[in-house]
Every structure is written in structure tokens, then in C-alpha cells.
């Protein structure tokens, strides 16, 4: 059993009771909701005649279904409009703060929580979305939950939970040029497997993480869930505190100093004990590209696609399924694979630093004729910041579409979808069959800079060659 870790400290300070079922009742410090998974929960609440127990601990935004080309109401899709109206109604009825379009603070729930300073070290966080793990970048325990659990958080500000084990993952040394946080995480998932994290909270540390910005840490924690870990986190440090200073919901003045003291105290102790420790070398990580239909099926961009015959029977089966769907061949290089669509967006990689990096790649180039390319900023604030820096012009001039904030083609619940068997280079987090809106559609996950390079070349390119 792990001891003295951030996981242990935050868990212990939030336990309300041990339940007759053997689970623990855990207080949830911050609850984030969006339009897709909350309406049923509100309905259940109303039907029981219950109210929201701690309305000032729940914040709402709209992201999954919003069209990114026009936000005019009513939305063209009746189901989308219905979901939006339901959220508006529920927020009003229960007195919840709702970051709607007109606030200028709307965006993907996992982008806006940190951006507004709602996400703070030492908190427990819940949201009806599996990528809630993103908030772990701040040293929180952030759980993705289902609709019934949303109802429980609304009604009681608590969840019934089973404790997790803790695995420390060190990435030591330095990353090479052209290697980003996204590559680090794709590499970790590749090494530990998509089921490797089941039952664990992942604690990320080591020199590479110490040097990462908050944006980069969020990219890694975001995809903990793709590695099977429900929760992933980085211990809070000066980088965390500086990020939070001056944010809308962060403490200010004297309270900020007190907060920093508390935030420091929740970090894992130097003598903390873990259930498992894994070490990787930053220098061993290449820019990564997925070739299959799970986020673990990836290779370094200069590698050739793996041979299923050299795999374990289980991996072989899923590799064969993946090759069949993707239309790719074992032994061929991933570099040079033609693409049809380039998508820069999602809660993994649509923050301002992602857009800056992609714009740097795009600057002075044109998107290949065969490629439809678009950028979907993670939030209205990201969009505004990017426009102030004239990044939108760089993208537009190159032939990218410049869109409004939302999840967009990460899961294609809005009108942005792959068509037929199109292949996308995507900065999102899931390459599951059908994920981007077409049953035959194919997804290559990579860093936003790599997506930008692929958009210009019309095929998967090595960002390192591209930049030199």
C-alpha cells in the first residue's frame, strides 16, 4: 500500500466515512458538468425532490455538441439544441455558474477548469467525462464519472469510491528536439499498455516533468485514462503556483500565500512509498504516431509498423484487427502515410501553447491540396488569445479553417466528422473505430506540431526534419 503520496494525502483529507458496502464516501471539492452527461442526472435529482447540495461547487460549460463553425441558436441539430437548453435550464434552476457562449469563458470542460483557476492542488474533482484526469496536472485527484455518480455529486457533493494503488512513473533526463508532452504520453501508454493502469493512480515525476509547463502536464495527465489509469497527477510545484496566480477563481492576496503553503503540503513526501515505480529515459522518446485503433498501438515516426507475428497472442489479435481497419501494412514506414484531414483540437492539445507550436510549423507554408485542415481552440479564451497573437491569420493563410471552441472532431458529436474511410492526423486522444464520426474513418494520433507538419506535407512527416 502506498503511503505519504499526494494520492494518500488528498484521499485521506476527503474521506467522509467508510460505507457498509466497503467503499469510501469521498467529498468532492469541485464538480464540473457539461451538456451531454448531466441532463439525466438533473432529472433524477428533480424526481427525487432533491436539490444541489453545494451549488457553488459545481460549474457548467458546453463543449461536446457545439457546432464550431457557427454558434447561432437554435443549433441546426435538434438533439444538440435540446441538450443545450436543458443545461441552461438546469443551471438556472439550481443556481449553478454556467460558462455559456456569452461569458467569453466557454470551452472544453477540461480546458476551462484550469484556465479559470477553478482547478487547484489538493482538490478532489469529478466530472462526467473520462478525461477529467487532465486536472491531475495540478496535483488533484480528478475522477471521470458516470451519470448516476453525477447525480450523487449533485445531491451530496460525495462519491462512493474504491481506493486505488499508486504507480510512480519517472521520465528522467531530457526530451530531444521535436518531442512533446503528447509524445511522452503516447510513449508511456505504448510501454505500459492501454490496460496497464487499471486499478492505479499514475503519479508522473522526474526531470522531464519538473521542466514541463502546466499545459504540457495537462496533456500527459489527460491521457492517463488511455493508459487505463482513472487518475493521473503531477505534484504541485512553483510552476503550478505561478500558473494559478491571478486566475479568476484562484485565491488572491494573503489567501494566495496561505494556499501555496497548503498546496505544497499535499505533494508526495520525499520518503513516500509507492505500489510500483517505473523509470523511462526522456532521450529514448521519439515523436510518436499511432497506427492502430487503440492509443497504445503507436510507433516512433521513424519506425516501421510492427509485425503481429512477433507479438503475444492477445496483442496479435488486436494488431490484426487494427491493420485490417486501418489499411496499413506491417513493416511499412508510418512516415509518408497520406492523410485526408488534419485536426488540431481536443482537451489533450488545444491550449494556447499547442496552437503557438503548430502555428510556428505552419508559418509560411500551405496546407496540401488533398487535405482538409482545421483548428478548434479549446476555449473562447484560448481563441481570443490566439487572435491577439494573430495565430488565426497564420492558420488561415496556410489554408486551415479557424473555428469556435468545442470538442469537435475529437468525438464528432457536432457536425465535424470524417467521411467514409478518410484518414485524419489528429491531436486528440482516441483513435477508436468510429470515434471521429465515420465507421470506416481512420485516426492517427500525434502532437499538434506533427499534425501541422502532416497537413502541409499531405502525409505523415517527421517534425524534426520539417523544422530543420
Amino acid at each position, binding site marked *: 500500500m502506498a503511503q505519504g503520496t499526494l494520492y494518500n494525502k488528498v484521499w485521506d483529507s476527503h474521506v467522509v466515512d467508510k460505507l457498509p458496502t466497503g467503499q469510501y464516501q469521498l*467529498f468532492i471539492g469541485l464538480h464540473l458538468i457539461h451538456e451531454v452527461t448531466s*441532463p*439525466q442526472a438533473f432529472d433524477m435529482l428533480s424526481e427525487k425532490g432533491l436539490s444541489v*447540495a453545494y451549488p457553488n461547487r459545481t460549474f457548467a460549460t458546453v463543449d461536446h455538441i457545439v457546432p464550431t463553425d457557427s454558434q447561432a441558436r437554435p443549433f441546426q441539430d435538434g438533439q444538440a439544441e435540446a441538450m443545450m437548453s436543458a443545461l441552461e435550464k438546469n443551471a438556472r434552476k439550481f443556481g449553478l455558474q454556467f460558462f455559456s457562449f456569452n461569458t467569453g469563458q466557454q470551452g472544453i470542460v477540461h480546458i476551462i477548469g484550469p484556465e479559470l483557476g477553478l482547478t487547484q492542488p489538493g482538490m478532489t474533482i469529478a466530472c462526467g467525462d473520462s478525461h477529467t484526469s487532465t486536472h491531475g496536472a495540478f496535483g488533484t485527484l480528478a475522477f471521470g464519472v458516470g451519470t448516476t455518480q453525477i447525480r450523487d455529486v449533485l445531491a451530496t457533493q460525495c462519491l462512493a469510491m474504491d481506493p486505488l494503488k499508486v504507480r510512480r512513473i519517472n521520465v528522467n533526463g531530457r526530451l530531444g528536439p521535436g518531442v512533446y508532452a503528447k509524445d511522452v504520453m503516447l510513449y508511456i501508454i505504448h510501454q505500459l499498455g492501454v490496460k496497464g493502469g487499471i486499478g492505479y493512480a499514475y503519479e508522473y515525476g522526474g526531470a522531464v516533468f519538473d521542466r514541463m509547463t502546466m499545459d504540457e502536464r495537462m496533456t500527459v495527465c489527460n491521457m492517463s485514462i488511455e493508459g487505463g489509469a482513472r487518475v493521473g497527477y503531477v505534484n504541485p510545484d512553483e510552476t503550478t503556483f505561478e500558473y494559478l496566480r491571478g486566475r479568476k477563481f484562484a*485565491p488572491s492576496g494573503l489567501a*494566495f500565500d496561505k494556499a501555496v503553503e497548503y498546496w505544497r503540503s499535499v505533494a508526495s513526501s520525499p520518503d513516500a512509498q509507492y505500489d510500483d515505480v517505473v523509470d523511462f529515459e526522456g532521450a529514448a522518446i521519439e515523436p510518436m504516431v499511432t497506427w492502430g485503433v487503440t492509443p497504445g498501438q503507436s510507433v516512433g515516426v521513424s519506425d516501421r509498423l510492427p509485425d503481429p507475428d512477433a507479438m503475444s497472442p492477445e496483442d496479435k489479435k488486436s494488431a490484426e484487427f487494427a491493420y485490417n481497419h486501418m489499411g496499413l501494412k506491417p513493416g511499412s514506414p508510418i512516415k509518408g502515410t497520406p492523410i485526408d484531414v488534419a485536426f488540431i483540437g481536443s482537451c489533450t492539445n488545444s491550449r494556447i501553447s499547442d496552437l503557438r507550436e503548430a502555428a510556428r510549423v505552419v508559418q509560411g507554408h500551405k496546407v496540401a491540396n488533398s487535405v482538409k485542415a482545421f483548428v478548434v481552440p479549446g476555449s473562447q479564451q484560448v481563441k481570443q488569445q490566439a487572435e491577439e497573437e494573430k495565430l488565426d491569420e497564420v492558420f488561415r493563410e496556410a489554408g486551415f479553417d479557424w473555428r469556435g471552441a468545442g470538442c469537435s472532431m475529437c468525438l464528432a458529436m457536432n457536425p465535424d466528422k470524417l467521411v467514409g474511410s478518410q484518414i485524419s492526423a489528429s491531436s486528440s486522444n482516441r483513435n477508436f473505430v468510429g470515434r471521429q464520426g465515420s465507421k470506416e474513418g481512420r485516426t492517427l494520433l500525434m502532437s499538434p506540431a506533427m499534425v501541422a507538419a502532416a497537413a502541409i506535407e499531405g502525409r505523415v512527416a517527421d517534425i524534426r526534419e520539417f523544422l530543420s
Partner: protein
Amino acid sequence: MTDLDELKITKIEGTAIPVEGNDIDTDRIIPARYLKEITFTSMGNYPFYDERFDTDGNSKGHPFDDPRFQGASILLVNKNFGCGSSREHAPQALMRWGIKAVVGESFAEIFAGNCTMLGIPVVTASATHVQELMEQTKSSPQTAVVIDLEHQEIRYGAAPEPTRIGLEIPESRLKAFMHGTWDSTGILLSNAEKTKAVAERLPYISGFDGG
């Protein structure tokens, strides 16, 4: 009064609606195409949809569309009601239409469990008693019906001498309704005071100025 008290269900009173027939499966209660909807909100429009409307949307005269049974809260059924797929949409659809309790000769186990999670008591009575109750509501739809879990009986007809029939419900479910512990929300709510204490102890809840 503790919060769990608010979740106690000891008695359901209302008028009844009879849906006759054995082995009515959940596909009939809610056709599969409505599972595509992302919220349960509209489920109340769909119970028995394909038995209520023809392909042109004209009513086929099902009890759920019969004006005499509008406003009913107690569903009367026969044998093995709710068999088939485990979809929670079925009890959701009934509940959203207005059903607060179901009385029948027997029920599929998963359906009964799903109903319990939603706070809908599903109780059984003998075939004869169910039949008599159905006949009564068909001839007088406004008959007042009381499902009294505490005394484990169903009463219907005018006071002071209503007809009384016995009801059965598994012990564990009866307790869950009587104690208000039929879902996790209830259990978590019962710790409201301890929850508050934890919240007050957490420095970020008070904005770090609590000292």
C-alpha cells in the same frame, strides 16, 4: 428529520392503469430506437410506443392513451412483466409517464431491480386479486388505490370500507423503501452532517481565509 427520512417510501396513493397480458418485455415497454436519445428526459413520451400508435402515428387505443387513465400513478400488470433486455430506459419511461408503483402477478428480476433503484416499488399480488383490481379500474378508472408497504396491503375503493388485498415484496426491497436506502444517493445523503464537517475542514472550501 434526517435526509434519509425524505427518501422513505411507505405508501403510494393514486389511481391505477391496467395493461393486460403476460410476458410484456422491455422492448415493448420502450422500443430500442429511443435508446439513442442521450437523456432520459423525453422517455415519458415513449412507453409502449409501438403498441400505442400505428405507423402513421394514430392512436390504437392503448390504455396509456385512454383519457380515462391519464394521471394514473399505479400500473397494473399480469405475469413476467419487464422481461428481456435490461435497459433502464423501461422503468425510466414508465416513471416519466407518471408511474410510481407497479402491481402484478410476477416480474422479471432485472426490471424489478431497476425500478427499485428509481424508487418505484414493484409488488406482487395473487392472480385473482390482480384480476379483480384490474376489473375495478376498468369499470371505475377514478377508483382510489393505496399501496401500503408498511402494512403490506393494497386498499382500493371508497373509505371507510375499501377492499383490502395482500401484497408481497422481497424483504430486502421492503426495507430499502422503508429506510430510504434504495440508492447510493440516499446512503451518501445520510452522512450529510459528516460531509459538512469535512467540507468545513478543507481550507480551499473556505477560500483559505479561515485561519
